[in-house]
């Protein structure tokens, strides 16, 4: 069937086709490039396994750092001898914190943030309390896990 009049000329049709095709091709390629440029994000670990000997025997009122993925975790024994584990990262801008035994507080040097023994943010800019972990001992192994995570170690 032949139409006498068409609203689009052959030329505009071709131009649109060409332009559209080009845009589609380019955006496809750009998408692939961006996919490559953005890393596949790892996750923070749900739990880590440490050596019991290294951590349970630390003196009271001190901390010992361990690797929590790419971040730092602190194993903490308070003055009464109770042990806990927490993420050693300030809730303000992710600086690593330290424990000040003389004040019995956690301190972030970046902008002078303070947290008390229970991780509560008591002074300075940090907006949230520190994150604490659960831990349990299975013989040699000390398993530090996010709160509320069930850890099932593969039987070796």
């Amino acid at each position, binding site marked *: 069937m032949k139409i006498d009049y068409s609203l689009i000329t052959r030329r505009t049709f071709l131009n649109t086709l060409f332009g559209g095709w080009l845009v589609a091709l380019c955006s496809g390629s750009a998408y692939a490039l961006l996919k490559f*440029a*953005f*890393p596949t*994000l*790892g*996750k*923070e670990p749900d739990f880590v396994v440490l050596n019991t000997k290294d951590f349970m025997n630390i003196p009271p009122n001190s901390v010992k*750092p*361990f*690797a929590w*993925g*790419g*971040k*730092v975790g602190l194993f903490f024994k308070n003055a009464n001898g109770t042990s806990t584990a927490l993420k*050693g990262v*300030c809730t*303000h*801008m*992710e*600086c*690593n*914190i*330290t424990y000040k035994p003389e004040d019995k507080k956690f301190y*972030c*040097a*970046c*902008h*002078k943030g303070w947290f008390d023994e229970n991780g509560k943010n008591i002074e300075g*800019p*940090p*907006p949230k309390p520190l994150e604490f972990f659960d831990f349990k001992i299975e013989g040699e192994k000390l398993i530090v896990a996010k709160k509320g995570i069930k850890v099932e170690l593969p039987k070796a």
Partner: protein
Amino acid sequence: MNCQRLKNWVEERYDVEEIKDFAKKKLVPTHKYEIWYYTGGITLFLFVIQFITGMILSFYYVPHFEHAYKSIIEIVTKLNMGWFFRSLHHWGAQLAIVFLFIHVWSTLLLKSYRKPREFLWFSGFMLLGISIFFGLSGYLLLWDERAFAAVKVATGGAGNLPVIGNFIKAFLRGGIDVTGETLIRFYAFHVSILPLATLFLIGLHILLVQYHGMSVPLSLEKKAHKEIPFFPNLFYKDLIIWLIILGIVVTLATLVPPEIGKKADPLAPAPENIKPEWYFLFLFQTLKLFPGEILGLNGEMIAIILISCGILFFFLIPFFDKKSNRGEKSPLFTWIGIIYFLYFVIMTVFGFVS
């Protein structure tokens, strides 16, 4: 020596006369504000220094988190003149950014951005952004404690932007944390991506300056003013200033070589009182003004949004300033420029003393 044969050889192929004529015809206005027009050239010169020293440093630098720190120590302690060229690269960067800021504010206050030079402003602004990113990425390459903590804070700050924040943060860090991946990424930015972008933008910027000719400040535009030839008069003046600047960076590089701190350790506590490079201090200080929470919203996010708006407005000033586009005086935008300037200076000073 007679180079006639060589001259003929060239002249047979290229119209040398035309180029010479062109150089002779380029005139630049002279007036009482012309001193500010040297700042662009100074920045250009400092960029050349950065490129040259940077290329040589890259012969010896190892972009890997276990070797980076050590390789810089070797550059500084073992290699011939290594300490000097590292120091020169450091001070060149500092001065380049100082002069870039002066350049930006002088074009802002003289309203050189007005019609038809909007694209000069945009390209220049992008160069400023790139230079700051140059500074941040170069800082991390040292891989010492302070650099590590500062980059963590800076990239984390970008993560506070709504919607795209986390994308940007992950893209910059190459993961969820600042790790060896981040170092490699920043290395790629610092020695390949940013230099290429800079070359392109500087080319565009200078081409546009050439195309539009130098602007004349609004207050002097109507009056008669003198013009002098760019070549040789202004060229020689530029040369004198470049020589002085060269002397200054070389002196700074010899007398005040930058320190190297302790090697970065992701498990170690942050060093006491970290401060970012001085050109980030005003941002940093602004962040501190905001409390952690405002009406139940994240204070940092609000701060970052406000800062972004401020920067965006600065970027788009040529579009907002309708008056100077028409060639009228525009005191409002002079005041806006002064306010931006004062804010920057005061916050930077506060950042230093606090």
